[in-house]
């Protein structure tokens, strides 16, 4: 999968979940921590939404694996890092 495509999938999911046109969403958007656009239950929703969007493209991945949890740097930090993680898993 191309990086742009992955970013687009993540951005669509974030926009769809927060459902607020006043919040800009782009590759830099933060998903985890103090400046995050979603809270923890929001992140959980987002991950499920992204997994189903990927499943529609016949890409079956589990984003919350033990691997994701035990990395030193969380792949859920931002739209960009999450997109990289999706590409890595779907490769």
């Amino acid at each position, binding site marked *: 999968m191309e990086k742009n495509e992955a970013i687009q999938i993540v951005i669509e999911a974030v926009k*769809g*979940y927060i*459902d607020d046109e006043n919040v800009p969403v782009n590759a830099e958007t933060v998903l*985890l*921590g*103090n400046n*995050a656009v979603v*809270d*923890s*239950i*929001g*992140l*959980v*929703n987002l*991950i*499920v939404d992204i997994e189903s969007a990927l499943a529609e493209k016949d890409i079956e991945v589990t984003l*919350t*694996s*033990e691997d*994701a*949890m*035990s990395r*030193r*740097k*969380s792949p*859920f930090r931002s739209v960009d890092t999450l997109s990289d993680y999706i590409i890595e898993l779907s490769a």
Partner: protein
Amino acid sequence: MYIDFIIERFKESLDKEAVIWNNSVYDYRYLLDKYEFWLDFLKENTQPGSVVAVRADYNPDSISLMLALIENGNIFVPFSFANKDIEEKIQSAEVEHYIKFDKEGNFQFIDTEIKANHQLIEELRQRKHPGVIVFSSGSTGKPKAALHDYTHLLNKFKVQRATLRTVTFLLFDHWGGINTLLYILSNTGVIGVPDVRSPEEVCEFIERYKIELLPTTPTFINLILISKAYLKHDISSLKVVSYGTEMMPESTLKAFNKLFPKITLKQTYGLTELGVMRTKSESNDSLWVKVGGEDYETKVVDNVLFIKAKTSILGYLNAPSPFDDEGWYNTGDRVEQKGEYIRFLGRENDIINVGGQKVFPAEVESVLMQIDNINEATVFGKSNPIMGNVVAAKIILDKEEPLNRLKSKIRKYCKNKLEAYKVPVHIEITEKTKVSERFKKVRG
């Protein structure tokens, strides 16, 4: 008169740190001043034995008010800003006065014109004891108003014990939170209230204020592990992390223990109906635990834990007594036994535990079925590596509709009707409902 021993200890500790809130530290002198203000206020505006609800977050004001309510002999009903069904709860708890704070700390004093005359409330008034009403989620999903005699709880705190600098991010209406708070105050310890309840913010708070005890849930421990917030902030001041309210995944326990071998992990067990019990874990990375203490008796029947407690509630104001003739309470928790130790296996029934919060399928189903074009909804829990479980729903539609549109429609509709953790995360469209041979809905 009820909390003389606590007030005495305050007076001996005037210059000691009491509450850390909104980037400031308040001492016991400040709390005592506030307490006296509130006690005067209550004496002027309420009668002892009257039912007073307070909606607030933890702050020096609400904490002092809570103490003043005990001293004045009121029956206290705590609400948090997360409660969405306050009107209904005011009715079932027979609230007579309502002190409603906004987020800036301003308050309104409202007379509800309700007259509290429930038999259990009368019983408590005859004892001339202060009370507290907390809401417990029952098996039907309708919150039950559980009435406690406050003096039971206070007696536990008469013996002075050591305290640790504690952070609390439980909501104001949480029974376990009230216990923790009273424990700390009666031993003139330090209670820290972070502004935001996120892993980052809490870890930063721990670092800044050298917090020693973090009472939390397995989900929050998971969120700390996932967010890596502990790498940005030094949380080595922590001595104890206690967890309860939901099943602890063994993997989380072991991962945390590996990262922080010096932090003692302590499992707690509390039920609204019984109080919070002392527990002793077999070891730091073990889920085997001894539950009880001098005020509790336990027995296991058919793998289900039963408890008899001196500190149990008088009863529910809006439901039949949950105790059998001998005073035993069926916890509904399935357990395994090994000598004196038990291990929790999960709930007997359908309750979905989302990060420590209970969700009753029936409640969510009833909201979903109000939505246009939804004929039938079956709600069940689906395991989730972050929250333990999340809410999932199978939907039968009237007319065909694309899944994405249905999903966003459901979220929009539920937004103002359900707390965020109750809103279904997974949505599936199906043809027909699964029914068991007893003609009961099969969830999952």
